[in-house]
């Protein structure tokens, strides 16, 4: 690592148009090494186009993009040597077996015969494909195929991996497996650039999330930051004794609403440290005995709909 502070991906003013249709309209991104960055957006928002530009498949119409310090337009080969790509459409050779696919990737990565053998066996084992190793990939299930696809991407030990909707069309079990693998990779120091249309996935995995709509980034931040931008968060207080419940009700007055449940109160709160502390101070001052406290921020679905919705919602976005 010559420079740990160097971002894995850095993009500024990235633009792409096909004919007179603008797909990306000035995008700025910065992804630190060893983190998961998720680009969230509906179909047609420009996610795949972004991945294609960053992975050197197509050239941008304007702006600048660097991956591990190499410009994608002027030095694509250095970028290619550092990245791996697994897209939503599987890139495996269906007529070859799983093992042959991996061996081919080892050959294309110019591994020695010994390394090829070891790497192929390791990856088959890691992705639970040892048993199916000698069957043609065309006979694999969707989940197995996606695992083989990712295994092929890993043969070259990429430092940055682009996962373009890696779990689209997978069953819940396979999806969780994929998530687990992604976490392991990041623990090893790999940087992940993930596109997804599943909020749950971005919430689960990403260190930072950017929301893409019509070729523009409409929001960027951690999942929590994004959620806090939407009104509707609250704190739920639960009490073990009716006396505590009554005191709290008196202290908080109109701010509190009973939650249907006899001994619980719902207090509007944006979930920030500052407003939580203010609430706790009020309760503490009156020695209210609270059993449990939980913060409910709107989930990413609320955020997503608010950020990418119709013009009514745009007032919320435009700070």
């Amino acid at each position, binding site marked *: 690592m010559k420079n740990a502070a160097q971002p894995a991906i850095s993009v500024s003013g990235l633009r792409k148009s*096909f004919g007179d249709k603008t797909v990306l309209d000035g995008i700025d991104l910065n992804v630190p090494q060893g983190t998961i960055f998720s680009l969230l957006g509906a179909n047609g928002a420009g996610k795949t186009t972004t991945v294609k530009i960053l*992975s*050197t*498949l*197509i*050239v941008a119409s304007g702006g600048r993009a660097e991956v591990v310090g190499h410009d994608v337009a002027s*030095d694509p*080969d*250095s970028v*290619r*040597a*550092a*990245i*791996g*790509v697994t*897209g939503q*459409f*599987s*890139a*495996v*050779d*269906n*007529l*070859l077996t799983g093992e*042959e696919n991996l061996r*081919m990737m080892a*050959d*294309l*990565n*110019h591994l020695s015969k010994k390394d090829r053998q070891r790497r192929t066996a390791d990856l088959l084992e890691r992705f639970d494909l040892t048993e199916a190793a000698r069957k*043609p990939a065309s006979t694999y299930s969707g989940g197995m195929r996606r695992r083989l696809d990712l295994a*092929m*991407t890993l043969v*070259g030990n990429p430092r940055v991996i682009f996962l373009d909707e890696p779990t689209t069309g997978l069953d819940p079990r396979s999806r969780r497996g994929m998530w687990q693998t992604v976490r392991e990779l990041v623990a090893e120091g790999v940087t992940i650039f993930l596109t997804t249309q599943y909020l749950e996935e971005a919430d689960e995995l990403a260190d930072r999330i950017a929301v893409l709509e019509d070729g523009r980034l409409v929001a960027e931040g951690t999942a929590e930051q994004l959620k806090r931008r939407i009104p509707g968060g609250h704190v739920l207080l639960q009490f073990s004794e009716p006396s505590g419940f009554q005191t709290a009700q008196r202290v908080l007055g109109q701010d509190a609403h009973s939650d249907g449940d006899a001994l619980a109160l719902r207090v509007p709160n944006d979930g920030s440290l500052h407003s939580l502390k203010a609430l706790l101070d009020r309760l503490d001052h009156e020695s209210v005995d609270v059993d449990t406290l939980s913060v409910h921020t709107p989930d990413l679905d609320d955020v997503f709909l608010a950020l990418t919705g119709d013009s009514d919602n745009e007032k919320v976005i435009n700070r």
Partner: protein
Amino acid sequence: MTAAATTHPLRDSTTMVRRNLKRMVRYPSMTVQLIAMPILLLLLFVYVFGGTLGAGLGGPSGGRAEYINYMVPAILLITIATTVQGTAVSVAMDMTDGIIARFRTMNIARVSVLTGHVIGSLIQAFLSMAVVIGVALLIGFEPSASLGGWLALVGVLAAVAFALVWLTVAIGQTSQSVEAASSLPMPLMFLPFLGSGFVPTDSIPGGLRWFAEYQPFTPIMESIRALLMDNPVGDDLWIALTWCAGIALLGYVWAKRLYNRKA
């Protein structure tokens, strides 16, 4: 990390050739279909049409025996044409499969994906032609070529196959679907018929005859025929090789351009 950006065109091409040969073995129905076509045409023309057409050639022996010697060059070209039809199909399969996108994002010699198809198809074409010549020999084909003639023949056939393979690698990339890729190279199958492949061109009328005399397959078939029968090749050989060089260059430039195309 400086070594990472260097390319290994030879090693990468070898890997790709191995991939394509494996694919042919795994997908035998296509391979068999591609080789069955020329053999069926050979049998059809020799046994059904051969008696009459052979008599029309006016050679010393006449009939079937004379005719098979006359039409083997056309069958060899049809063998190459069906092989490259397979090339177009497998290139189109690659393009629709997503694996090409993977190769494009890897630091491998870019041309190796295409050379893999080209060399794989050349090997397939020669295997198919060996089978076709074998069948022809069994049913009465009697070539009189010398060793030098055979070597020259291999050279000419390699040049033709090389040119047509590059052309169909380009055609396979332009096709939007595998089905389209299998029908686009069809005209190549018919060119031997519209030339000196099955009948001498002077028996063809009018404008069609003009086409038959000047289209590229005619000098190619004349050269092959002359080499097989140990006759002087004359100018046909150079005209044939010039055509091959031209088609190969066009196909290569076109194929490479399509492959490197960035939207």
